[in-house]
């Protein structure tokens, strides 16, 4: 199958999915390669082990291959695929009860980061993010890195808009607690130290 030239990534994704529904393995490969980078980054918020990331990505595309014919354009292709990856990640997470990612905020003592902690911004951020429950961490990633709208995140995570807002609210509050340097900037940090 020769795919028609499409102007936008959305149109290209839709055309590829139509081809996949017709059994075109080349189209699946093309879609896989175009999504691998963003899915790997997104899923690295869920697990730090690449073999798990790869497994979830491949499980996701097994679903894409088998379910493409059922896609009804109710959402963008990217929203649909990221939603499959999200739910696949949740299933994997629940299977691995002792996985490090299972640690929620409640597993940690209530304490703020030492504001004199000498670390780069990334260290601060990783420190704070690692203490968020997974749903909150992934909601932040979906909004702040992947740039999804509130409604898209609700579709991806298959939950009401109000739940997405609540997860984001709690994530912001906890980051504010754990990351005074981020939430207040250098001036805020100085004020807290001083």
């Amino acid at each position, binding site marked *: 199958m020769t795919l028609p030239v499409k102007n936008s990534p959305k149109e290209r994704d839709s055309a590829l999915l139509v081809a996949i529904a017709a059994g075109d393995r080349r189209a699946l490969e093309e879609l*896989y390669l175009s999504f691998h980078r963003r899915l790997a980054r997104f899923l690295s918020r869920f697990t730090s082990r690449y073999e798990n990331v790869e497994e979830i990505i491949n499980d996701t*595309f097994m679903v894409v291959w088998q379910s493409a014919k059922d896609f009804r354009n109710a959402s963008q292709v990217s929203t649909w695929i990221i939603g499959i990856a999200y739910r696949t990640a949740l299933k994997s997470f629940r299977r691995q009860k002792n996985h490090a990612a299972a640690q929620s905020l409640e597993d940690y003592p209530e304490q703020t980061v030492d504001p004199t902690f000498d670390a780069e911004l990334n260290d601060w951020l990783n420190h704070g993010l690692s203490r968020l429950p997974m749903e909150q961490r992934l909601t932040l990633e979906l909004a702040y890195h992947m740039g999804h709208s509130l409604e898209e995140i609700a579709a991806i995570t298959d939950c009401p808009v109000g739940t997405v807002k609540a997860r984001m609210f709690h994530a*912001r509050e906890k980051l504010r607690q754990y990351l005074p340097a981020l939430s207040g900037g250098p001036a805020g940090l100085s004020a807290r130290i001083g």
Partner: protein
Amino acid sequence: MTHNRRIENSAEHHEVSALLPWYVNETLGEIDRQRVDAHLGMCAACREDLAAQRRICEAIDAQPAIDYMPVASLKRLQARLDALGESDPTIAPVKEQPTQRLPWRGWMAASVAALAVAVALLAANRFVQTDAHLMQPNYRTVTNSAPRPQGEVIRAVFAPSITLVELQSILDEAQLRIVSGPTEAGVYSLASNSTLTVRASLALLRQHSTVRFAEGTLPEPEPGDSP
């Protein structure tokens, strides 16, 4: 109760505050955006929160992502699909289209062939005086025939169990960055981020048990060579 306190206790404040992340990533609809704009004009707490959210958004967005070459993962997916097709004849069969090969497939085939030649030449040169019967290919090579990625000074292999955070930490310590990889053999090409010598970076890498292999790709300077 002060004016500010009244605003912060209002339902409007709480509703607008919940929308701030999507105001930051610019995905709010026009009506909601105007609503947030209007509230920001009168609410100092939301302005402060907005500034904080922008910093967090920028920090998350700027976090380095380790690039993985997806070809090896794709091959494993293809194997699963092949197995699925064999076990379930209702699954759509693979469409073979030999006249329209993907560009990377051709590149991979050429690369594999060139790699095989390079390995053979290397083996012949290295072990020309050894018994050929000892040359069983019971190893994975870390060399390849592709041009050396720009800036590459070190090739390294890490333990499969290493986490992304651990990997980044080791690279930061050795003042290196990934310019390519991992290959199918798990080899990363690393470039220097600083004036630290390759020898020093190698020493820093090798002190970690999760670094399985690390070698410089440039010729070692002879003693007495000027730096």
